[in-house]
Each structure stands twice: as structure tokens, then as C-alpha cells.
């Protein structure tokens, strides 16, 4: 059975890029367009790994991760943060929020796949 990845990003382009890369690497991909949508999709699809952006409307990445970590059933799903902001405070913030790891945009497909495999159960 294919491993499933949930990608959360408000940019259509980014969602499609991620889907393109990840499904090409053999993963099943589910997408969400903001943190709130992400929570719903998480419940519905129970992915193996989550990749999320930080800057999103409605609910941003930090809040999304925090909410996931607070939940009962899937609070330990590996979550990778995908961001263009590589400043150390942002990484620190992501880590404090509960991110498992991070990937800096722009990513090349190999980097992305390797990072995913590092945390894929």
C-alpha cells in the first residue's frame, strides 16, 4: 500500500508542485489549502507524513502544527515545515510548535523526497 502524504499550502502552484514531485516518488498525495482545511484532511485521510507551509490564511502553519500536537489520535504524525523563511528564529519557532523537520524553498525534488523518507514511518 502506498504511503500517504498530506500537503498543506495556500498556494495552488506549490500544491501542484508537491503533488507532482511526491506522487512521482511513489507517494499518495492529499492536499489542503490552509491550516483549518489541513486539520480536516488530516482526520479524513490519516496520512503517514504531513508537509505544511507557514504563511497561510485562516490558520497558519504554526497553529496547525500546535493543534495537531494537541489532538488525541494523530498527534505524533511527522510534520515537515516547508518554508522560504530560513531565519533561525523561524526554525526555532517551528520546532517549538512541534515540527519534526523542515525544508527550505525552493527545494529540489531529491531534497524533498529525502527529507520525507527520513521521517516516513
Amino acid at each position: 500500500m502506498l504511503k500517504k502524504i498530506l500537503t498543506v499550502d495556500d498556494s495552488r502552484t506549490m500544491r501542484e508542485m508537491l503533488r507532482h514531485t511526491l506522487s512521482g516518488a511513489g507517494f499518495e498525495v492529499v492536499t489542503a489549502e490552509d491550516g483549518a482545511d489541513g486539520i480536516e484532511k488530516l482526520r479524513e485521510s490519516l496520512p503517514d507524513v504531513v508537509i505544511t507551509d507557514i504563511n497561510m490564511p485562516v490558520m497558519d502553519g504554526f497553529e496547525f502544527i500546535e493543534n495537531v500536537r494537541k489532538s488525541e489520535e494523530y498527534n505524533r504524525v511527522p510534520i515537515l515545515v516547508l518554508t522560504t523563511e530560513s531565519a533561525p528564529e523561524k526554525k526555532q519557532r517551528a520546532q517549538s510548535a512541534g515540527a519534526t523537520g523542515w525544508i527550505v524553498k525552493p527545494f529540489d525534488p531529491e531534497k524533498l523526497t529525502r527529507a520525507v523518507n527520513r521521517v516516513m514511518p
Partner: protein
Amino acid sequence: MSLDDIKETFFAECADQMAELETGLHEIQSSGPDIDTVNAVFRAVHSIKGGAGAFGFSALVSFAHVFENALDVIRNDLNQVNEDRMDLLLRSVDVLSDVIEAERTGSEPDDTSGLANELETAFGLSEAAEEADDEDDALADFAPVMIDLGDLGDLGVPDTPAGRRFHISFAPHASLYLKGHDPLRFFRELADMGTLFVTCDSADLPKLSELSPDESYLKWQLDLETESAREDIEAVFDWVDGECALSIEETGAPAADDGASLDAFLQSLDETESGGGIPDIDDFGQDPETVPADAGNPVADLIGSLEAADIAAPAAQAEPDAEAGNSDEGSEDAGARAGKKEVKKASQTIRVESEKVDRLINLMGELVINQAMLAERIGQAGFGNASPAALALVELQNLTREIQSGVMAIRAQPVKPVFMRMSRIIREVCSATGKKAMLELEGEHTEVDTTVIEGLIDPLTHMIRNAVDHGIEDPETRQSKGKPTHGTVKLSAYHSSGRIVIEIKDDGAGINRERVLNKAIEKGIVARDAKLSDDDIDNLIFAAGFSTAETITDVSGRGVGMDVVRQSIQALGGRVNISSEPGHGSLFSMSLPLTLAVLDGMIVKEAGQTLVLPVSAVLETATLKPGDVYTIGKNNRVVKMRNQLIPIIDVGRQLGFADKRTDFTKGTIMVVEGGKNGMGAFLVDSIEGQQQVVIKSLESNYKRVPSIAAATILGNGQIALILDCDHIVSHQTSDPSDAVIQSMAG
């Protein structure tokens, strides 16, 4: 989905983001900054930058980066907005749009470094930008991927002796598990780098009854034989910095059997080998009977211990680290945090290809026609109006009407995006002419069919350009007149009697009537001694061949005059006119149908032809009585109605279907409004009825026919032409006494 498809998506998304950006900055400019709008604007540029990076559009990335940083300054402190900075930001919007377009068409983007420098200076970015760059470089080394030995360059040791040995001590904190990490994965990674020996230290593991789900008890001692460098090993634990106690030491030559190799115990599940430090099952405090069959197998126990570690930190409530995050009030969070205030539920929307909607609308049109045909057949078959068949038909018609409204509503869009585009047009004209003007919007959420919206863009653009170029005075002149230096162009939209009215009002100088009249006389548009009202003079700008542009600038025209604008609007089934107050400004007023797809029509018969008039254009109908008709001058017949004398229009003759009418004692009069506040009394043989008709274009297979707006297919399959009332009323006669007729009243 290929990369090219995704690229298209990117540019489509850029268009959306630019619209957001434009709208947001417009709001900030008119009502001051608020955190939600600023965040939305920041995110728009951020998204564009992100996507651009993925496709390697470096010019776009670098400009978007500076723009984003400038917006970040405001995001962190809303007081950082001032007029000069707003101007810079607005200019940046235009430049960003241009760079996107250049990248989209594959041409060389203009150099943006000038504006980028201005942004950096104005927002105090220079240092921060450099810092960020440094960070980027520094962090490249911390990229969370395995680094090949080959990549290390000067850090690498080319002639590393085969086989170095490291001793790693790894004790995860509870937080490590809570972030979705699994020690087994780290071990896997390390094992990929060479040969790994793992020993679990479960000394801290309490009895099961005292086991707390939130705590971490297990520690590991690992020995790795590898050719990789220390940095590589550190990189494996990159993400759990601070979530564990970690030490990595290079040790001497490999020793034989410290603990058990990961490979070994995954392979030798059945072997009973004793390893050091493997706990006895009894230490778990378990009832021996519940223990699996191979309980005595220490290797299995080791695996069990690793799995127990999983159990030891199950889903839990407390997570001190997340709390630390919550209490963090740092300014870099202000933006991200506040983002959640936008949680007022956005209405559900879906994206649908417009072709699908167009097809649906066409099918609806066919349904309407078919329904009319059915009605006809039912009538012909002799079913009375109260018969079940007829009643069922009425039901059907009601249902169809509802579905049709619903379908049309799908394609109805607010005019806002078109209005927002005008924002940029104004900026361009201002910068080209040195004038200052601001756009004010009202009723931008008024909806109209897509087909009409698309047709609006060009005429609106020209009228706005006109308003700023010719209407608004330059700042000094305005000041001397006691007006604010910034002119205002107000764009408003509202529904009125089944149509949409769009107005462009400027507070400029108004129309220079003398100049316009002279120009018109010069061009032979009006006779030298013609008596024209102020309004007539104002509307001369729409006359064919008229253009007051002194310089053929790129600004107002590009060779397009207001006459072309009027024609485009008329082609949409609309009308436009201008009114002006010298010294105070002008007002363009446009009225357009809500849709180009269907029409409520009055079906009439004239000269053997079946014709259709838009119900919205008909003011009144009446049967002609001989005493109502008066003759003025030689040939102009008028009818007395509505306390006015309204010129009679011999429709059959006008359209060339019949010779001049001689009998003016019978027929039906329809008082129709058209042109600029004009009216005509259309004389036709009879009115057949009223029904909704589907508009079929003549132009798609033929061409524009004057006096005819479009065609439709009636219930009997016959084609009926839809009259262009504006055109007919405006062109009814070129007799100079017409003006006299128009002004006669009572």
C-alpha cells in the same frame, strides 16, 4: 500534470495574488493599515516568491524578496506606513506585475534594482537583507539532508582512512516523541552510513504500573563504523537539536561485540544470543502469562524494548514545548499569529472551468427555446389553458425559469476585479502626466455576467484614462482653484431596472465646451450655426472622428477615440453618455444589460416580419388612434403621449422591410427609450406577446448589422431579429427640426 501545466497554474495564481495585492494596498491607502489586510498582502507577495523560486525565475524572486521584506516591516509595526512608502509600494505592484509578465512570456525582465534600492532605503532593509543572505549561506550547511563526502569540499578529508568509529550516546526527551520522531528512523539512517551497533539502556524504565505516558525513559548507546565524517552524523540528529541528550565521540578501532548490530538482530530474530543490558521481561512488572511465546528471547526483548519506547510516549495532552511556543510574543509571531483572526468563515467556493459554465448556459438557452416550441405545439394541439397539459407546461416553465436564474447566477461576477484594474491605469496615467489622482470605488460587489464584464474592460480603461488625462487638472492648478491636489475618480456600479449602471465621476475641470464645439465645427461634425444644448455639446466627444487629444499620447487613446468606446458599449447592448459641470468635473454614465445571454423580449409583428424588442427599453405601449398623430414640418410625424410629442418611427421602413408607411391610423405604438435620453414611438403592426428569448449572435457567423442587436429563435423554430433600440432611436432622422421636436413638451 506536467511541469508546464504547473507553470500555467503558477501564472494564473500570480494573477489572483496580484489582484489581492492591488485590493489590499488600495484598502490600506484609503482606510489605513490593519493587520489582516497587511497579512493578506504580505502572503500574496510571499506566495509569488515561493512559486517563482520553484521555477527558477530569479529576477522575480529577487524583486519579490525585497518587496516582501518591505511589507514585513509594516506587518511588524503598522505605524510604519506613510504616504511616500505607500507610493513606493504601489509602484512596486506595477513593477512586480511587469516582471511576472516578462517571466511568463519568456522575455527579459526590466532591471528592478532601482526600485529595489528605493524600497530598501525607505524601509531600512539593507542590513536585514544582507543578514538574511548570510543566514542563507550559513544555513546551507545545516540543510537537513545527508551530505555526501564528495560535497564537503574543504571540510572533507579526501584521504579519510577507511573505517572511523564513533560512539554516540542518545537519550531522547519526551518532546522528541511528541514531535513525531522515532528513534528507529535515526538508527536506520546511521546504519545506512556504515555498520551500526545498538545497545539500549533501559535502566530508567520503571515498572509498568508506574509508567507515565509523557515521559521518556529509554537511552541508547550506539557505535558506528563508517567512512563518513562527524558532521554527517551530526546532520542525522539535525532536527532534534535540543530534544535529546546527544554526544558523539570518535573512538578507536572497532571492537568486536558491543551490543548487537541493528542488522544482526533484525536478521536473527530466532537466535538466542545474549546482549548486554537487555532487560528481563519481569522488570516490566508484567504477568508472565501475558508475555509472548518467545519471551525468553533477549533479541526479541530488545525489539520489544524499542517498541515499548513507542508505547512509553503515546498520545498525550501536555507538551511543554508547544506551550513555550504559545507564550512567545515575539514580533516575528505577530504576523503569523494574527493570521488566525481571519477565521470568519470564508464562503465555500469552487473553481470551475468557464467552458463548463458556458456550455451549461448554452444548453439552458436551448431548453428555453425548446420549451417555447413545446408551448406552441400544445397550443396548436388544442389543449385549453386550464387543461392538465397546459398547467403542467406552466409548471415546467416556472421550473426552467428558476434553473435559468440559477445558472446565470453562476456566471455572474462582481465588477470588482475590473474596477481594481483601473487602479493601475490611473497610476500609469498619473505618472505619465504628472497629475495626481485617486480611485474611489462604490458598489464594486455589484454582479453582472462574465460576458458583459469582459466587454467592459476596454471601454472603462479608455474612459478612466480620459478622465485623468483631460478631466483632472495638474496639482498646481487644482491648488490654485482651492481643490485638493489629488483628484478623485469615483467608479460606481449599481443595478437599476434590470440593468447595471456604471458611473465614472471625476472632480476635474469638466468639459471645455468651447473647445469641443470648435473642434466639432472644424471637423464638420456640426454645422457652424447649429443650436446645441450644453448636454449636446458634451456628448459631441462621442461623435465619430472626434478627438481632442493635443498630443497623440500613449495615454488617452492609442488612436482610439470616444466614438469607438461608445460603439463597444453599444455592441454590448449598452449605452453611455456624459454630463459635465465646468470647473467641477464630469460624469460618464453607462447602462448595460445584466447578461448577454438572455433577454426579456416583446414580440411584435411588422411588415410581415417577427421582431423582438427588449422589454427594458419599452416605456409604454398603446393602440394608435388617428387623432394622436401630428405632422411637423414636411414629413415628421409625432404622437402625443406622456405629455410629450414623440417622433414616430416607421420600423418597417427603417429596417428596409417595407416601403414608407402611408397609413398612420392603425397599428401599435411602443414608446421606446434609447440613445441619450431619447425616445421614439415605434409603430408596428401588432404586439404578439412577451417572453424570455435566448440571444443568438449575428456576428459569430455574419457581422454587425446596424439597427439589429442580435437574433433569437422562437418557439416555432423561426428566427426573429432583436432590435437595437439605441441605434434606431438615435438614427431615426437627421432632420434638423428633430431638435425642435425633442424639446417640445406638453
